[in-house]
């Protein structure tokens, strides 16, 4: 009998964890330990040589963190994942060429023999452009390169980039996966389908000197990339998630489908309402008919265009600052994806040090307000918006 293909909502609740074998605990136990005993010196040697599966040190693996990893991997279809915090690629000497993602051919034109990967966001921040993932994936595939997609703004409930050809998906779990603004975290998920042995990725196919010559792709196959991230990246750079934080993120993941439905419904209603408001100059939300990315949003985000929208306030920077100062319960902070509605005026906060020309070039003009629409009563959100807009003039 073929294995049942469970639905997304079921996987959000069950993937990655069966009742604890030792205690029968139904909820995920928090394994608050740094280290794990070895059965014998030989067992330890097998673990260090990556020749058996087991826990050594929580920087590399932890059973609570592993539940979160597998749950995210299951919901994004297939492969391995590992959690990671705050990796700073720039310090590692990795050069990046930025291109306008609206034309997928721009990626093709930027590829050189040294290129290792293409990278894009499902929904760009803060411009909220929707990337044609399948088209960029074709460019990547023709060049023998993996396409990385940052799917943070969409969450796996709204978009699963593997279905469109992405090789690696990353999320800030701090946002919708956790969903309650409590916990920092990030994930890397691999599709398990990228051919790392195509001649461009020697570090995946040649012996790893740190592990007695293990070849990650040959040994681990469809989870070779994430094993390499874990065993070389986590070990060396140390951005490991704590067991408690994994537990908190898991509580959020359980209700992701329900929250995303309400986030999207509220965001669409707020976007429509703002369009008709006399104090609003423009509204940018890919879920609105007429938005330049609306067709791509219908293709890649059919269940909703997410919780984030931006709008322009009449009166520019001064009105924006006044608006933010006037809200009653909408929270002014630099995050998205909280259950609470969040609002920020970049020109007077995160981008204040830039000139007006520089702000416009960065896609955050002086009049731009960014909203992450939360789960409060819709009428209350609109009420707070309206009174703050009235006071901003």
């Amino acid at each position, binding site marked *: *009998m*073929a*294995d*049942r293909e*469970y639905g997304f909502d*079921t*996987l959000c609740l*069950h*993937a*990655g964890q*069966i*009742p*604890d*074998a*030792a205690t*029968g605990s*139904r909820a995920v136990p928090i394994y608050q330990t740094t280290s794990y005993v070895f*059965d014998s010196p030989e*067992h330890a040697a*097998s673990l260090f*040589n990556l*020749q*058996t*599966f*087991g*826990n050594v040190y929580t920087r590399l*693996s932890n*059973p609570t963190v*592993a539940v979160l*990893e*597998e749950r*995210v*991997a*299951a919901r994004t*279809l*297939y*492969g*391995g*994942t*590992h*959690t990671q915090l705050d990796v700073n690629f720039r310090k590692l000497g990795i050069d990046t060429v930025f291109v306008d993602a609206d034309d997928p051919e721009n990626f093709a034109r930027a590829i050189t023999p040294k290129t290792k990967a293409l990278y894009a966001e499902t929904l760009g921040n803060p411009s909220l452009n929707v990337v044609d993932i399948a088209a960029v994936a074709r460019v990547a595939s023709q060049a023998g390169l993996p396409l990385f997609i940052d799917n943070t703004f969409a969450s796996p409930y709204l978009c699963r980039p593997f279905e469109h050809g992405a090789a690696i998906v990353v999320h800030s779990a701090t946002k919708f996966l956790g969903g309650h603004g409590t916990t920092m975290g990030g994930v890397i998920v691999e599709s398990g389908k990228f051919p790392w042995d195509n001649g461009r990725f020697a570090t995946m196919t040649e012996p790893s000197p740190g592990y*007695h*010559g*293990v070849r990650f792709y*040959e*040994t681990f*196959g469809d*989870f070779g990339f*994430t*094993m390499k991230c*874990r065993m070389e990246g986590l070990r060396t750079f140390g951005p490991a998630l704590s067991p408690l934080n994994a537990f908190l993120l898991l509580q959020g993941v359980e209700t992701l489908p329900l929250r995303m439905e309400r986030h999207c419904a509220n965001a669409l209603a707020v976007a429509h309402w703002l369009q008709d408001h006399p104090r609003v100059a423009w509204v940018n939300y890919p879920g609105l008919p007429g938005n330049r990315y609306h067709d791509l949003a219908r293709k890649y985000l059919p269940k909703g265009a997410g919780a984030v929208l931006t709008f322009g306030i009449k009166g520019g920077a001064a009105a924006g600052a006044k608006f933010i100062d006037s809200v009653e319960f909408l929270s002014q902070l630099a995050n998205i994806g909280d259950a609470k509605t969040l609002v920020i005026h970049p020109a007077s906060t995160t981008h204040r040090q830039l000139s007006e020309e520089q702000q416009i070039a960065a896609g955050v003009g002086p009049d731009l307000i960014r909203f992450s629409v939360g789960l409060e009563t819709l009428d209350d959100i609109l009420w707070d918006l309206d009174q703050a807009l009235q006071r901003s003039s």
Partner: protein
Amino acid sequence: MSDIATLRRVLRDCHTIAVVGLSADWFRPSNFAAKYMQQHGYRIIPVNPKYPEILGEKCYPDLRSIPEKVDLVDVFRKPADCVAVAQDAVAIGAKALWLQIGVINEEAKRIAEAAGLTVVMDRCVKIEYARLYGGLNWFGVNTRVISSRRPTWLPH
């Protein structure tokens, strides 16, 4: 078939595994996969004409030379060699034929299945054991195991 129920049955019903093409080099996947299964309670019988002994067990040049009952034939050979291996597996009365990751041969599969053997192809015996009986889940891999039952085994 490689659904979870079939794989669990193969791994539960088979106790003696003949590993065809087992390397004596400790850093080769065939060696540490067999060693892993040995450490998890299976009897390993090495099959490789190049060695007298591997992993503490007497090594045989081919399947037909093994003087005892073999449940599972696990194959680390190139796909072209698999038809002969499948014929030998049938001849010695094995219950199942397992071709490792990348070892794909439809004719070998057909021969073994026609004789009533369960065939698993393009999978790793060690990874599947760890996936279904614990261990692989510690590394964030999508094991596809969904259950509300408390397992009767402890992963190790």
